[in-house]
């Protein structure tokens, strides 16, 4: 059988065994949640509750400001204890609403089913998705309603659901495909209706045959939805690479998937859309994979947004040995954390605990021009040159070598035998080029 794929990429070990076969467990309710006002790419929310307020589950606590923004909601019922700047997983301080749970999980009266696909028109669907605070749950957290609202003249004809889950360790999407395939398909059909697309693909890496099987069964009666097996390769789940693998279309440099008529959503996002339509409950919980050598009992947990990371670690039996690095997200693109107080958010696909040994930096040596970085780059850059120009502060050259096209997947750094921090250097170049452009624009 031929598996769909893209050119380039690499094959890091998947490390998925510890959690791939573990059913999703409901996490113990946190006693306190910290709800950051910014859990998405775009403008932060403005808090609409104050200290002392009593809030219920699903109640809006932050109102979206601007188009690229979604509201945030309370994930527990209880009293608002603080509205203040707090450290977030992004490494910066974000205005957050702290709620002390009363343990009753009282549901906000406004939460009620929104009808079904047939009775909703596209506009209503997009509004429900926005008000439901739904963002891309693969980790990028781009507000979903924005994707569903292409500017006039752009027609979306194809939807791709991303079930690739190419990041090592993570199995949250794998589990949701096994445990809620019908919800995913329902959500997908909602998306298709919202943008009036005729065709949809659900792309899954071939290292999850059970998920492929489950999704195929769920779409057995859907003639417009096709489950496709993708070659297991990193970064198979990167948006543009996924589009190329499924449709052979190529998103223009600097462009968006909508430029080729495609919309990509994560499978978990689709399942959330189904849930919000069917029950009215906004995005207040998600599945997170807790794994890594330094955690005692790896798990797939259904966690409430705002749960402090330390609660989750405790629930997984604590450390098996002293952790050296804690990552929010996957090991290829996730963020290393300074501490365990930070709350989990809508984008927390994983919490990975590495041992001190795993956290060590290998010694760096000279570039030997082996060009492995060139052969793995999924956007066909030459990372060795961009990195070198970046280190020598020759940003004009870095720009000529198309630093801005880097999708930051980390494949180059991963394969480099000389252990040069290629991606890190490219990021520096990208930031510097963007700064320069901003200054020029002024």
């Amino acid at each position: 059988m031929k598996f769909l794929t893209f050119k380039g990429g690499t094959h890091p070990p998947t490390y998925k065994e510890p959690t791939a076969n573990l059913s999703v467990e409901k996490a113990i309710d946190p006693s306190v949640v910290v709800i950051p006002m910014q859990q998405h790419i775009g403008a932060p929310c403005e808090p609409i509750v104050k200290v002392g307020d009593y809030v219920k589950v699903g109640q809006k606590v932050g109102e979206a400001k601007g188009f690229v923004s979604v509201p945030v909601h309370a994930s527990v019922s209880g009293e608002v204890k603080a509205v203040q700047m707090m450290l977030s997983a992004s490494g910066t301080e974000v205005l957050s609403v702290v709620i002390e749970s009363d343990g009753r999980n009282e549901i906000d009266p406004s939460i009620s089913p929104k009808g079904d696909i047939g009775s909703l028109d596209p506009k209503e669907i997009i509004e429900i998705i926005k008000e439901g605070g739904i963002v891309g749950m693969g980790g990028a957290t781009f507000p979903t309603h924005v994707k569903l609202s292409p500017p006039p003249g752009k027609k979306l004809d194809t939807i791709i659901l991303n079930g690739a889950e190419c990041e090592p360790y993570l199995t949250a999407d794998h589990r949701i495909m096994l445990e809620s395939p019908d919800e995913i398909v329902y959500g997908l059909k909602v998306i298709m209706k919202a943008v009036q697309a005729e065709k949809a693909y659900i792309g899954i890496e071939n290292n999850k045959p059970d998920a492929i099987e489950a999704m195929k069964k769920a779409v057995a009666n859907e003639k417009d939805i096709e489950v496709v097996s993708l070659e297991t390769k990193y970064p198979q789940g990167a948006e543009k690479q996924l589009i190329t693998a499924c449709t052979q279309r190529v998103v223009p440099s600097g462009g968006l998937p909508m430029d080729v008529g495609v919309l990509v959503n994560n499978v978990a996002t689709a399942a959330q859309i189904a849930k919000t339509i069917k029950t009215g409950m906004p995005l207040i919980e998600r599945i997170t994979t807790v794994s890594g050598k330094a955690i005692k009992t790896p798990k797939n947990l259904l966690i409430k947004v705002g749960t402090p990371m330390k609660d989750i670690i405790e629930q997984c039996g604590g450390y098996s040995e002293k952790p050296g690095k804690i990552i929010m997200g996957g090991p290829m693109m996730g963020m290393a954390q300074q501490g365990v107080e930070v709350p989990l958010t809508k984008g927390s696909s994983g919490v990975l605990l590495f041992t001190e040994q795993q956290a060590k930096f290998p010694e760096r040596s000279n570039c030997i021009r082996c060009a492995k970085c060139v052969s793995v780059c999924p956007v066909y850059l030459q990372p060795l040159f961009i990195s070198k120009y970046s280190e020598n502060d020759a940003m004009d050259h870095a720009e000529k070598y198309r630093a801005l096209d880097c999708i930051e997947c980390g494949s180059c750094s991963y394969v480099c035998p000389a252990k040069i921090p290629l991606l890190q250097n490219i990021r520096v170049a990208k930031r510097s080029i963007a700064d320069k452009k901003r200054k020029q624009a002024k």
Partner: protein
Amino acid sequence: MEERLVVSSSPHILGEDTTSKMMLDVIIALLPATIAAMFYFRSSAAFIVALAIITAVLAEAVVQKIRKQPVTIKDLSAVVTGLLLALNLPASAPWWIPVVGSAFAIIIVKQIFGGIGQNFMNPALAARIMMTISWPEQMTRWVAPGVDSVSAATPLSFVKDATAVPGNAPELMDMLFGNIAGSMGETSAILLVLGGLYLVYRGVISIKIPAIYIGTVAVATLLYSGFDFYFMTYHLLGGSLMIGAFYMATDYASGCVTPKGRMIFAFGCGVLTTVIRLFGGYPEGVGFSILIMNSMTPFIDRFTSPKVYGEVQRQDA
């Protein structure tokens, strides 16, 4: 919870490949040919190999000590250079030939340009060519395999200025297994190919460069001789084509980095090798060809930059 956590930029996992592991693979790949050289040329071969490697490693360590740089002999690249150089020498070479060659390769060609990865020419090859020009007598005193060191001609000298293989030339079978005169490591074509295939299997080199290089020489000699397959095979198995194609044209530092560039590089090596062998003053052209192409790599790389993903005409509605 009071932990000291590492906060670094992604990716948080790195591959197992290291420079020294890749160098070790090259050494492993060269072992069969090295052992064959010792079998055919006895103790003088072992002596030259040892001298070349020891000199290369020492030269690297000393230069780095003098320049107060970290000593990087553990990356094994100096061992590879020493070994490659030794295999490029005749078994009859006096002791100072491997010593001078290795020192030149490491100090002049490699370290002066900044050490590993910075040299624009293959150090072992540059040393061989330098010495061939400086001491042609010592560098081309070819001997037949065996203990007696009877001087003999290399296969390529039989086909120099010829369009067919003369009757008194060595047998193809001997050339395949290495029972011929020549520099120590270029004699056994089959063992060199075997090692080369190991490097392909290990992902250290891509088969493209040797395949295109050897293929180009094959086609060119075939055309030149009017489709004389015997003549073609003679050119493929004789001289340093195999060691050059698998171990020197594939050298990372002095070769191209773009996929297309590497193909052009290999093709250029093939054309130049054939031209020098058939029309030049030397019976052998591999060394010169690779060095000439080495000097062109920045140029080739620049003009073969891969098209970035999505670098297409924007189809704005």
